């Protein structure tokens, strides 16, 4: 069953790449999906090896890169991609053109948070994630309340970097390495975001 889910995720990511190539162009697609892959693998390796947040169950995934399941290389890309696409339609906006960008990003964050509830409760069935802390407030499937905020924060950080770099006057051959290199900023920024949310939840909800 897990292998089926992994194959499904890769196949549906291929559909998203096709859609992006057709409607957004080659440059955006390269920036978005290659950086998304690097971000997923680097971030999940750092989180599972260094932080006290969570690690992945070794028996729950088939293919790995270090401590990160290969699936995580496409996970952030396709979730942010469909959230962004639906949000752009809803608000008649465009990330790259900078049209109604605040509404588009906020809506993408809402989609990501909502998808987090579905995805993490589903992951709990297969015990894909091993939580290393005990939350006071949990959602469905024992998912800490922190998690939907974490998904939303990832969308915010990733889309801001995509927006800044894709609007720069650099050539594609320079934008891509710059975008990939920016992962070393995105990961600590996201961990800082999670730290702040965790602190706020502790203060306001005693988590």
């Amino acid at each position, binding site marked *: 069953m897990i292998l089926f889910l992994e194959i499904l995720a890769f196949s549906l990511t291929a559909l998203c790449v096709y859609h992006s190539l057709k409607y957004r162009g080659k440059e955006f697609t390269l920036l978005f999906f290659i950086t998304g892959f690097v971000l997923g693998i680097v971030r999940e390796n750092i989180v599972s090896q260094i932080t006290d947040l969570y690690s992945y169950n070794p028996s729950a995934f088939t293919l790995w890169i270090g401590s990160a399941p290969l699936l995580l290389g496409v996970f952030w890309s396709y979730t942010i991609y*469909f959230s962004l696409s639906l949000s752009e339609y809803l608000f008649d906006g465009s990330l790259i053109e900078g049209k109604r960008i605040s509404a588009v990003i906020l809506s993408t964050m809402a989609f990501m948070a909502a998808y987090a*509830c579905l995805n*993490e409760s589903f992951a709990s*069935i297969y015990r894909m994630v091993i939580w290393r802390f005990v939350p006071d407030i949990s959602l469905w499937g024992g*998912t800490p309340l922190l998690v939907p905020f974490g998904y939303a924060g990832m969308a915010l950080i990733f889309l801001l970097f995509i927006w800044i770099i894709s609007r720069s006057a650099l050539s594609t051959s320079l934008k891509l390495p710059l975008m990939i290199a920016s992962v070393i900023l995105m990961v600590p920024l996201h961990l800082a975001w999670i730290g702040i949310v965790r602190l706020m939840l502790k203060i306001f909800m005693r988590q």
Partner: protein
Amino acid sequence: MFPSITMDNLNEVIMFIDKAKEQIPLIVLSIFILVTVIIEFFVFKRIDLLPANIPILLLVLLYVVVYLYRRTRGHTR
């Protein structure tokens, strides 16, 4: 007796596929939701997890309503 295939039929099919291609993000999200609900409900009988799907279902519903509203009003993107 099979219905005959005409150029009009073929054009309608091609137009439908083109419209479907525009909606790939919605199709991808819908497949993930569907697979999740089927596995949770039919395979593992975890009814307690089903409410976790409500937030994303509401957002998808909002998207579909806006899409249908714009189509009936003749808005195109």
